[in-house]
C-alpha cells in the first residue's frame, strides 16, 4: 500500500513514523545503558537529551503530518494499517502531538530533577516506552490493539510511580496504582470479551457493522460489555469510579512522573474512549438517530458530572498542593468527558473538538503546574499551602509561570484554558444539557477558589523566615517557562490548532 505524503508516494507505514520515533528512542536508551562501561555511569545529559529529542521528534513529525493533511479528508484520508488494526487520522496525530509535547517537557525537566539518582537510564527508557504505548493508543483501531497498547503504557507507568524506591509515598502510590490498574484491566478485558461475544469482531469498524443490524444483537450482553469497557477507560483517564489511585500515585510519584501521567496518560485514555465509543458504538448509543440500544451517552453524562464534582470538592479540601493538583486532575477528566456526554448537540464535531482542545491546553498547563511542584521539591520546600508562602519573593519568574498555569486551569483569560473551558460550556448549552452546564459552572467557581489559594500563598502571604531558594536549575526552569509561554500563547493562537481538532472530530461522526 502506498500513501501520498507531501507529494511523495511512500509506504503506508510511514504515517506511523511519530510512534516509531518514540519506540526507536526507547530502544536506543536501552542500548546506551547496556554498553556503558560501568553500571550507572551513563551520562545524564545523553539520556535526557536523547529522550527529549525523541519526544520532540514525535511531536514535530505528528504536527507536520497534521499540517500536511496526512490521514485527514483534505489530504490522504485515514490511513488504515494492518487490516484496520491501527489507523492514522487527524485524531491520532492530534493526540500524538499532545503526548509528544508533554513527554518532551517532562524529560527535559527530569534532567535536573533526577540529579544524583540511580537507575536514570531505566527511568528515561520507561518514560519513552510508556509514551510509545500512549501514541499507539491514539492509533489503535481494534479492541485487541487497544488493550495491548494500553498495557504498554500502563506497565512502565507503575514502575515510574514507584521510582523513588526508598520513599514510602512513592512505593505506596505505585502499589495502589498497580492494584487498581490490574483490577480495571481485568474489567476492561472482560468487557471486551462481552462486546466480542455480541458482535463477533474486535476491529472497531467491524463491530459497528455487526451491531448496525440491530434485531439479532444480544442487548443485555452488549450493554454489560459496553459499561465494563467504559469503566476500564475510567481508570486510564482517572475518572470516577476508578479515580482513587490518582491522588496517591500523583502525590507519591516523582513530580515529573505525576505531570506525565496526569497529562499525557489521561489524554491517551481519552483518545481511546473517543475512538471506541464513536467508531464502534455510535448507533448503539442512538447517535445516528433513533432510540439508543445501550444508552451510554447518559452513562457518560452521569460519570462526567460525578467525576468533576468529586474531583473539585476533594481538591478544595486538601492541605497539600500536589494532592490538590491531583484531585483537580480528576476534576478536569470530568470536564473532558463532556466531549462524550454532550453529544445530543446538533454539531457533534464541535462538542468533541472542544474536549480535544481542552486536553491539548491541559497538557501544557497541568504539566507546567506539576513541573513547578518538581521545582519546589528540588528546592526542598514543603508540600502544604503554607510552605509556599511568599515564594514569589525568592523566585518571581517561576511563580509568575505557576500563576499562569493555575489561572488558566481555573479558566481565566491568561491562557488557553479560558477558551477551552468556555467551549465546553458552550457545548453543554448547545446540547441543552443543563445538568452538565450547571455542574461545570459550580465546579469551575470552586476550582477558582482552591487554585487561587496557591496564588495567594505565593504572592500575598508573607514568607516565613527560613524560606530560601538557593539554586535555579536551568532545565527545570526552561521546561516550566516553555510550558507557561505555550499556555499563554494558546489564548491568542488558539485558532491555529482548533480547526484541526474540529476537523478531526467531525470525521468520526461521518
Amino acid at each position: 500500500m502506498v500513501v501520498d505524503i507531501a507529494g511523495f508516494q511512500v509506504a503506508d507505514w510511514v504515517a506511523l513514523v511519530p510512534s516509531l520515533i518514540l519506540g526507536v528512542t526507547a530502544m536506543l536508551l536501552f542500548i546506551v545503558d547496556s554498553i556503558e562501561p560501568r553500571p550507572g555511569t551513563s551520562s545524564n545529559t545523553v539520556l535526557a537529551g536523547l529522550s527529549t529529542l525523541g519526544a520532540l521528534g514525535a511531536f514535530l513529525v505528528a504536527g507536520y503530518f497534521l499540517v500536511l493533511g496526512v490521514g485527514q479528508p483534505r489530504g490522504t484520508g485515514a490511513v488504515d494499517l494492518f487490516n484496520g488494526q491501527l489507523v492514522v487520522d487527524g485524531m491520532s496525530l492530534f493526540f500524538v502531538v499532545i503526548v509528544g509535547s508533554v513527554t518532551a517537557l517532562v524529560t527535559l525537566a527530569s534532567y535536573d530533577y533526577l540529579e544524583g539518582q540511580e537507575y536514570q537510564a531505566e527511568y528515561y527508557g520507561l518514560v519513552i516506552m510508556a509514551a510509545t504505548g500512549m501514541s499507539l493508543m491514539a492509533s489503535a483501531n481494534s479492541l485487541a490493539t487497544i488493550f495491548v497498547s494500553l498495557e504498554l503504557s500502563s506497565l512502565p507507568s507503575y514502575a515510574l510511580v514507584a521510582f523513588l524506591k526508598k520513599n514510602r509515598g512513592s512505593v505506596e502510590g505505585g502499589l495502589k496504582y498497580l492494584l487498581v490498574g490490574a483490577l480495571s484491566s481485568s474489567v476492561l478485558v472482560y468487557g471486551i470479551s462481552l462486546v466480542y461475544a455480541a458482535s463477533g469482531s474486535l476491529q472497531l469498524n467491524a463491530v459497528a457493522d455487526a451491531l448496525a443490524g440491530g434485531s439479532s444483537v444480544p442487548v443485555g450482553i452488549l450493554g454489560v460489555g459496553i459499561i465494563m469497557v467504559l469503566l476500564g477507560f475510567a481508570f486510564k483517564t482517572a475518572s470516577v469510579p476508578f479515580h482513587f489511585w490518582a491522588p496517591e500515585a500523583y502525590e507519591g510519584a516523582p513530580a515529573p512522573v505525576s505531570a506525565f501521567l496526569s497529562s499525557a496518560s489521561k489524554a491517551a485514555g481519552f483518545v481511546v474512549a473517543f475512538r471506541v465509543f464513536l467508531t464502534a458504538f455510535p448507533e448503539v448509543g442512538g447517535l445516528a438517530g433513533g432510540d439508543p440500544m445501550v444508552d451510554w451517552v447518559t452513562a457518560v453524562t452521569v460519570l462526567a458530572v460525578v467525576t468533576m464534582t468529586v474531583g473539585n470538592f476533594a481538591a478544595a479540601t486538601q492541605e497539600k498542593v500536589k494532592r490538590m493538583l491531583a484531585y483537580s486532575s480528576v476534576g478536569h477528566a470530568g470536564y473532558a468527558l463532556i466531549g462524550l456526554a454532550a453529544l445530543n448537540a446538533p454539531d457533534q464535531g464541535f462538542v468533541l473538538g472542544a474536549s480535544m482542545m481542552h486536553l491539548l491546553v491541559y497538557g501544557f498547563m497541568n504539566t507546567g503546574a506539576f513541573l513547578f511542584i518538581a521545582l519546589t521539591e528540588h528546592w526542598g520546600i514543603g508540600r502544604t499551602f503554607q510552605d509556599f508562602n511568599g515564594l514569589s519573593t525568592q523566585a518571581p519568574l517561576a511563580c509568575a509561570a505557576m500563576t499562569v498555569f493555575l489561572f488558566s486551569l481555573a479558566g481565566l483569560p491568561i491562557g488557553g484554558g479560558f477558551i477551552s473551558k468556555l467551549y465546553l460550556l458552550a457545548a453543554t448549552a448547545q446540547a441543552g444539557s443543563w445538568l452538565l452546564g450547571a455542574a461545570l459552572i459550580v465546579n469551575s467557581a470552586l476550582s477558582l477558589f482552591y487554585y487561587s489559594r496557591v496564588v495567594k500563598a505565593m504572592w500575598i502571604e508573607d514568607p516565613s523566615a527560613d524560606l530560601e531558594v538557593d539554586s535555579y536549575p536551568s532545565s527545570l526552569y526552561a521546561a516550566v517557562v516553555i510550558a507557561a509561554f505555550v499556555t499563554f500563547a494558546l489564548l491568542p493562537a488558539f485558532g491555529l490548532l482548533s480547526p484541526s481538532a474540529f476537523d478531526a472530530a467531525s470525521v468520526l461522526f461521518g
Partner: protein
Amino acid sequence: MPVAGPIEALLAVTLVGALAVFLAPDEWAGKLATAISLVPVAVSAWMYTAFDGAGNALLGGDLAFESTIGWVQLGRYELAYHVGLDGISMPLLLLTTVLTTLALVSSWTPIDERQSQFYGLMLLMEASLIGVFSALDFFMWLVFWEAVLIPMYFLIGVWGGPRRKYAAIKFFVYTNVATLIMFVGFMALVFGLGDSISTFDMPEIAQALRAGGNLSAVAGIQPANLSLIAFTLMFAGFAVKVPVFPVHTWLPDAHVEAPTPVSVMLAGVLLKMGTYALLRFNFTMLREVAEANAAIIVAFGVLSIIYGAMLALAQQDLKRIVAYSSISSMGYVIVGLVAFTPHGFGGATFQMISHGLISGLMFMTVGVIYNETHTRMVGDISGIADRMPWAVGIFVAAAFGYMGLPFMAGFAAEYLIFQGAFASSVIPAAPLVTGVAMFGIVIVAGYLLWAMQRTLFGEYSLATDYDVSRAPVHDVAPLVVLLALVIVLGVRPGLVYQMIQDAVNPLLDTALQGGVALW
C-alpha cells in the same frame, strides 16, 4: 480598514507600559507608570476631538476607529478581533484613561511597598478596561471582561486592608460565577439564531435579534422562552457587576479592603462595566423581553436605590458610606435604562460618566483624609476643616455633587434619568415609581450632610495619634482635576451628552430629534 488605529495604540501602550513598570525599580515605578498613563489620556483626548462615529455601534451606526482582524474559528463560527467606538463607549473610554492617571497619582502617598507590581497591575487593568469598552466581538470582549479580574484580585489581595484576602477571593469567585452564568445565556441566544449568523460579532447578533423571528428552538426550548431564559441569565450575570440588590454583597467588602486608588477604579470604572454590558446586551439585543418585564427590572433598580442609601445611612466608616451609596447611584442607571425613553437611556449613560467622576472624587478625598488621620470612622474625626482646608473644601463640593447640586454633573444625570423615567410608557405607574426613586436623593443628602457635619466641622479632635496637616500637593491635584471635570460636565453636559444621545437614539423607534443640546 486600518489594522493599527488609536485603540490598538492604547492597548499596546498600556500593555507594554505595564511590562516596563513591572521591571522598573520600586523607587520610581509610580512616576514611570503615571508618565506612561499620560499617553492614553492624550490619545483618548485626541480621539474625542477626532470622533466621527454616528448612531449606535450595535445597530448599524458608523463606528469610529474601527478595525477587524480574524482570530479563531469556533466550529461554524468565526471569532474576530473587532473594536470600534460609538457615542456610548467613547465617553467611557475617556473616563477610564483619565481616572487611571488620577488614581495613579493618588497612589503615590498610600502605596509604600511592592510599588512596581502595584503600578504594573494598574496599567494592566487599564488595558483590560479599554478593551472592554471598545471590543465588539463577543469572545474578544469576554477576554477583556474576565482579564479585569486578575489585576483586581491582586490589587485588593496584596495592598488591601486587614480583611483583604477574604475580600479579594469573594470578589473573584462572585464575579467569575456571574460571567459563566451570563455566558450560558448568551450562547443559548447564539445557538438559537442558528444558521442566520456565522460570527460572534455583537452588531451582527444584535441586529439579527432585533429583526425578530430569527430565533429557533434550542434543545427543545421554544424561542419565546429561550429569549426570556437568556435575558434572565445575562441580567443575573451583569447585575453582580453593577451591583444590583440582592447580589451586591461583594462590593462593600471589596471597597473597604481595597486601597484608595483601587476603590477609585472599582467604583469609577469597574461598576460601569456592568451597566454598560446591560445596556449593550439586555436592553439592546433583547429589547422586547426587557420591555415586557420592565416592572420587575425597575423594582430591582428602585430597591437598589433605596436599600443602598439606607445601608449607607447606617455606616460609621466613611469609605463604607461611599461604597453603599454607589449601589444606590447605580440603581438610578437601571431605572434610566428600563424607562425606554431617549432621556432615560441618555441619562443612564451620562450617569455612568458622572458617577464615575464623582464617586472617584469621593473615594480619593476620603483617602486623602485617611492619609493624614489614619482613620475613616465618623466618630473618630472631628473638625479637621481648619487643618486641611483644600481637602475638606473639595469633600464638601463632591458631597454636594453626589446630592445632585445644579451645575454639577450629578444633577444633569439624575435630572435626565428622572425626566426619562417619568415619561416612560414601559414602566407601570411611571410617575409614582419615579417619585419613590427620587426619594433616594433625600436619603443621600441626609447621610452625607450628617457625616460631613460630624467629621469636617465642629471642634477639632482625633482619636488616632497623628498630626493632621495639609495634604501634599500631589494628593490634592487629582481632586482638583476631578472636581473641575465634574463642574465642566455640570455646566456643559452637551460636551459628552450629545454623542451619547446620538448613540442611544437608534435604540428606540421614535428618536429624539434635535433640541437635546443641554445648556
